[in-house]
């Protein structure tokens, strides 16, 4: 997939599990040869290695170059379990152990060290055929983790209090609810934090505060020099163990790298790619987490990366269009039609959208608004949101604003709503998140945006409203493009895993807007894309990085299937 370029280097996306990149480590040359042949027969991409340290350096060289590692337990230079540990910590890849020895104790040791499977030699073809499930499973879990990570981050952001939001951009009936939800989520976390000190195997709940401490420690140490021990020491949390920190760091790294990827992709694609299209969920939540399958008709991408509910994004788009002159509107125009449709779907959930709706008022897309009603923020959002958002801070480039804001969907949203868009976005999101990296500088944003605008990606699901607002769009051409773009964007977004991983945007972003309502933001971005003109200024202003997902390609009006495919791609 084109869109996935940035994040996914191999063509494996297309026919997962075919093309699965496997690294086989075994000191026995005979087995290495056999396994290589077997894996090739499964249509996997195989790399063989006779030494554990060679394998480690290969893995380190290409951090994202492999999907799964299969290693023998007994190797001359390094214990297989040690390798297993390293891989798990540094790369967080699924590892399968192999041995001719099937003693329970050995198998148990493997599992304890984190092996996702333990195969007995001689290994049969059929056993290798199914190894892709481990990759798949891990991706799902990763998405979930990142989601929760985002959730935490977003909570943080919301906490920081966004003035912008105070305005009520995200006003809407849901606002209060989300606010409440957010609070609850927070409380919940807090409680858990207190009552669940990490004990041997007690699962550590990374609350907002804890995560905040963690990130602060990481930043203090310097991301490059970071290590679990150092972080642990700095954090000064007595009950936290090194293991807890190590695994969390792993996830965090992944998250950031995804953001990075996303931003990379975004830059290449077009400014904003709205994150997931099917905003139905409109869960502003990082959108990434959108359930893969559920990708609603992309219309409401909102949820997609920005976690802002799709609706938001959409509404933003709409708004953007109206205001924007053309670009934003363009995408909207098309999507609009779609949006209305979607919006209704997604609307239900998006409270944030509501906010936009309100704000949008000015949207030409009036049409969309109507259609969207309160539930479907998208239609309105597009046009309105951009306006509103921009009003707050940015100028004309509303979409941008919108985006920025989007990123942080209410924590609650993220957690709960994430709905579909989230899930779907997740895979992409993860990717992109990492891309975003903690601090997306305005510069990044700028990059992101411009891209978007080009594409009129408004199409992104969120932009659906855009279509609705077609009429309002000033630039007709744009709309056309937007649609295309949004789709593209969508795709990108998806692929990118919705760059918006708000969480990764680093706590600094504490952008209020993320607060959950995020929606408006998304849209802004969307609009942004649509509109040819990205206001660099705007972009810079908008904490785009918050959204993390510059990729909002509006191009795609992602429809569930697309997302699903994209998701697959991610995993691939």
């Amino acid at each position, binding site marked *: 997939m084109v869109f996935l370029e940035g994040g996914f280097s191999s063509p494996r996306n297309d026919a997962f599990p075919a093309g699965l990149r496997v690294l086989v480590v075994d*000191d*026995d*040359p*005979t*087995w290495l*040869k*056999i396994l290589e*042949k*077997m894996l090739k*027969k499964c249509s996997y991409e195989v790399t063989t290695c006779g030494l554990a340290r060679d394998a480690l350096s290969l893995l380190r060289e290409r951090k994202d170059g492999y999907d799964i590692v299969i290693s*023998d337990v*007994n190797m001359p230079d390094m214990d297989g379990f040690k390798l297993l540990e390293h891989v798990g910590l540094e790369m967080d890849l699924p590892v399968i152990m192999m*041995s*001719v*020895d099937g003693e329970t104790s050995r198998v148990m040791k493997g599992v304890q060290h984190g092996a996702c499977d333990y195969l007995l*030699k*001689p290994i*049969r*073809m059929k056993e290798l055929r199914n190894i892709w499930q481990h990759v798949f499973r891990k991706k799902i879990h990763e998405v979930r983790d990142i989601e929760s990570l985002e959730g935490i981050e977003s909570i943080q952001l919301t906490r920081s209090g966004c003035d912008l939001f105070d305005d009520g951009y995200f006003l809407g009936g849901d606002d209060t609810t989300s606010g409440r939800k957010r609070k609850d989520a927070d409380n919940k976390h807090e409680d858990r934090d207190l009552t669940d000190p990490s004990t041997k195997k007690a699962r550590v709940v990374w609350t907002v505060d804890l995560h905040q401490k963690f990130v602060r420690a990481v930043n203090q140490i310097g991301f490059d020099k970071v290590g679990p021990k150092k972080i642990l020491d700095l954090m000064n949390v007595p009950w936290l163990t090194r293991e807890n920190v190590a695994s969390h760091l792993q996830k965090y790294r992944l998250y950031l790298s995804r953001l990075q990827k996303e931003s990379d992709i975004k830059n290449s694609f077009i400014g904003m790619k709205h994150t997931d299209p099917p905003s139905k969920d409109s869960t502003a939540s990082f959108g990434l987490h959108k359930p893969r399958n559920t990708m609603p008709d992309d219309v409401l991408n909102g949820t997609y990366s920005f976690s802002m509910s799709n609706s938001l994004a959409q509404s933003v788009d709409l708004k953007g269009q109206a205001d924007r002159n053309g670009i934003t509107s363009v995408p909207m125009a098309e999507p609009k039609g779609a949006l209305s449709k979607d919006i209704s779907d997604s609307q239900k959930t998006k409270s944030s959208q509501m906010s936009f709706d309100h704000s949008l008022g000015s949207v030409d897309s009036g049409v969309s608004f109507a259609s969207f009603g309160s539930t479907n923020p998208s239609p309105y959002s597009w046009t309105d949101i951009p306006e509103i958002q921009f009003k707050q801070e940015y100028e004309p480039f509303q979409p941008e604003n919108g985006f920025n804001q989007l990123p942080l969907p209410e924590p609650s949203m993220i957690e709960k709503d994430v709905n579909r868009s989230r899930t779907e976005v997740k895979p992409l999101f993860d990717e992109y998140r990492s891309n975003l990296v903690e601090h997306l500088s305005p510069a990044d944003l700028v990059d992101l945006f411009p891209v978007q605008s080009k594409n009129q990606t408004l199409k992104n699901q969120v932009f659906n409203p855009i279509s609705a607002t077609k009429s309002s769009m000033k630039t007709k051409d744009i709309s056309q493009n937007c649609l295309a773009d949004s789709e593209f964007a969508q795709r990108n977004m998806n692929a990118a895993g919705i760059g918006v991983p708000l969480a990764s945007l680093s706590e600094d972003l504490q952008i209020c807007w993320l607060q959950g309502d995020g929606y408006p933001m998304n849209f802004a971005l969307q609009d942004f894309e649509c509109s040819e003109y990205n206001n660099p200024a705007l972009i810079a202003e908008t904490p785009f990085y918050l959204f993390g997902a510059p990729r909002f390609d509006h191009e795609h009006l992602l429809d569930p299937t697309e997302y699903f495919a994209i998701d697959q791609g991610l995993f691939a």
Partner: protein
Amino acid sequence: MRRQLAIMRQSLFDQGYLDEQFIELEELQDDANPNFVEEVVTLYFRDSARLILNIQQALERKPFDFNKLDGYMHQFKGSSSSIGANKVKAESTLFREYCRSANAEGCLRAFQQLKKEYATLRKKLEAYFQLARQTGPLETASRPK
């Protein structure tokens, strides 16, 4: 000649020299790797010879380092399992048991037996592949479904 090859092949299974794994290898053989099985077997004998030598040398140092011996044999067993060397594998398991019970005598005996089986298998497979080469690629992949 084909029939001869088939008979030879079948007897290897019947007599327990080879097991299912060998068939797996045969199934892996395809146009991309038309001599896959022979290549793997050759590789096995070459690599395992080294292991045999290691064990031999270790058995010459008294007292026996059973852990080390067990480790070597573990490797050897793993390797042998790759081509389906059934009898050889059985002998390695026996050897390892003696190692675990620190039975020096048992180890020596088992090792002798293992070397014999190893040599026999090598001869038989060499003959088999030689005939297979003469016969043509078809034969090697045949297997009763």
